[in-house]
């Protein structure tokens, strides 16, 4: 018995030893930086330097500036639009891949097809929308050839629309993956039984399929939300600086060494993310699902 306890204790301390480097890394380089953002948001900013005298000046600055508060609303609006679009566009695709395709090989091939674009640089994928949406871009040329429009649509590029299109295309796969995964796990016998009992497809969908896929929707929504709320490259590249998100403000503020203001925006972003993620986690208890 004593030998067993000694061995157990030794294994215990050994596993703590295994865990320590990872935990320290995360505490030092993830938790400490986030705490720093909160702390620095109360520092005093002068034109050329920053010092650690605590003040609310940057916070007052943020909420009294129309441009900054406007960026907050733009971020929220774009997040809601992109989130809805990724769900609306992604769900039917996930339904087909995860549930309707009978052959496992075809389902895998389709999923791999969705993932392949991720091996192209993120920035290049964003940039690829420019020749697509521009005034002399592919979409305008095709529409003109088809005779649907006479003059090219200029609002396609360097507008909020182009940012929405770009973000939807880049992030929709993060919605499709988790939903298709949950749909694939549904026991086909349940659907069969419901059908035998005379339920139509609509009823089967709303009563069985959709509720069982909800954890996938929540995971997808969390992925998309985290990425869209923290975005700045897509809006920078496709809106021609017309669309300013919170992320864009952080970038420009850091660029002009206004660390305190960048930190204020960072804290607001962190708060938004926490609220959104916590909200989604209330819909489904993910722990019991996995």
């Amino acid at each position, binding site marked *: 018995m004593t030998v067993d306890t000694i061995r157990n204790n030794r294994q*215990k301390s*050994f*596993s*703590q030893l*295994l*865990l320590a*480097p*990872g*935990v320290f*890394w*995360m*505490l030092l*380089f*993830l*938790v*400490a*930086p*986030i705490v*720093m*953002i909160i702390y*620095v948001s109360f520092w005093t900013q002068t034109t050329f330097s920053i010092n650690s005298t605590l003040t609310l000046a940057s916070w007052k600055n943020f909420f009294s500036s129309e441009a900054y508060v406007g960026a907050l609303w733009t971020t929220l609006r774009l997040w809601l639009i992109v989130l809805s679009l990724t769900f609306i*566009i992604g769900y*039917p695709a996930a339904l*087909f*891949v995860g549930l*309707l395709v009978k052959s496992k090989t075809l389902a895998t091939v389709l999923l791999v097809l969705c993932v392949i*674009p991720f*091996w*192209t*640089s*993120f*920035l*290049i*994928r964003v*940039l*690829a929308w*420019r*020749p*697509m949406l521009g005034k002399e*871009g592919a979409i305008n*040329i095709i529409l003109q050839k088809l005779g649907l429009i006479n003059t090219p649509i200029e609002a396609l590029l360097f507008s909020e629309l182009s940012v929405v299109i770009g973000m939807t*295309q880049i992030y929709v*796969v993060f919605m499709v993956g988790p939903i298709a995964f949950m749909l694939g796990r549904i026991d086909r016998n349940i659907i069969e039984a419901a059908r035998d009992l005379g339920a139509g*497809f*609509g009823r089967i969908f709303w009563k069985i399929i959709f509720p069982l896929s909800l954890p996938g929707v929540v995971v997808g929504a969390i992925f998309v939300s985290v*990425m869209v709320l*923290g975005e*700045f*490259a897509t809006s*920078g590249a496709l809106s021609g600086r017309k669309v300013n998100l919170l*992320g864009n403000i*952080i*970038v420009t503020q850091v660029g002009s060494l206004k*660390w305190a203001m*960048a*930190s204020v925006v*960072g804290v607001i*972003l*962190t708060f938004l*993310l926490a609220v959104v993620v916590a909200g989604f986690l209330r819909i489904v208890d993910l722990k019991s699902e996995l």
Partner: protein
Amino acid sequence: MESKVLKPVLAVYVAAFILFLYGPFFVLAILSFQQGPEGGPQFPIIEWSTYWYRHLFGFTPPSRIAPLPVGEALVRSLTLAFMTMVTATVLGVMAAQAFRRRFKGKGLVFYLIVLGMMVPGVLTGLGTSLLANNVIGIERHWWSTAFVAHVVYTFPFAFLVMLAILNRFDNSVEEASWALGVSPVRTFRKVTFPLIFPGVLSAMLFAFTLSFDEFPRTLFASGRDQTLPLAIYGTFSVEIHPNIFAFGVMTTLFSFALLSVYGILMALSVRRAKKTAMQEDIV
């Protein structure tokens, strides 16, 4: 029956969906063969040529369009991705190994690690540079601050991959090895590691590709010397030319080469495992 109608409709929809995912890239690939140096990054194609590919490698006579500053940036990105890959995978394997036992605060540690992939890059980047710039007062470099931030991002992926592999791990083979008096370190090297090797390979692939393409964290946390994504970002603000499209095609081909290497290594390790299993059957 509705599903008789639904299935073909959705099949067409999925085809359109995949076109939506690939469309921009096709356009980009086509335009990379634009005539140069006068041809711009838009339609129509004046004349098909490989000018921009030659321009990328510096085989064209000097023109008003400067070559992309990718040479050194590529080396930096590869080095950084390699450093990140090794560190993140080692940390991931160690942490996942520890997670096979129960311990106090397991849930908390799990969330702490996963937080690294959930916090947007803007925030980790900003926080890391604040810490380096205003508190510690050190200069930021791609191999120091950016490296640290890259590991924060990729370590959770490696950890989750390893966790999934170790969940399906048969503990009795390790116990048998211990019972025979083999030391834990030797057991890990000779028994555990070969069994989890496919998982380690996947964790490495994840860490490498994520780090290689990482942009927001690098933008804040690296100093003057640019990595590849930063070099690409730099061309955004100025006028764009088809050479960046040619470059996009090249990086995609490179990714596929990397993916093929991974596939071959994976197939080899599976075959070797099968072979050993067969030999054991014969004995």
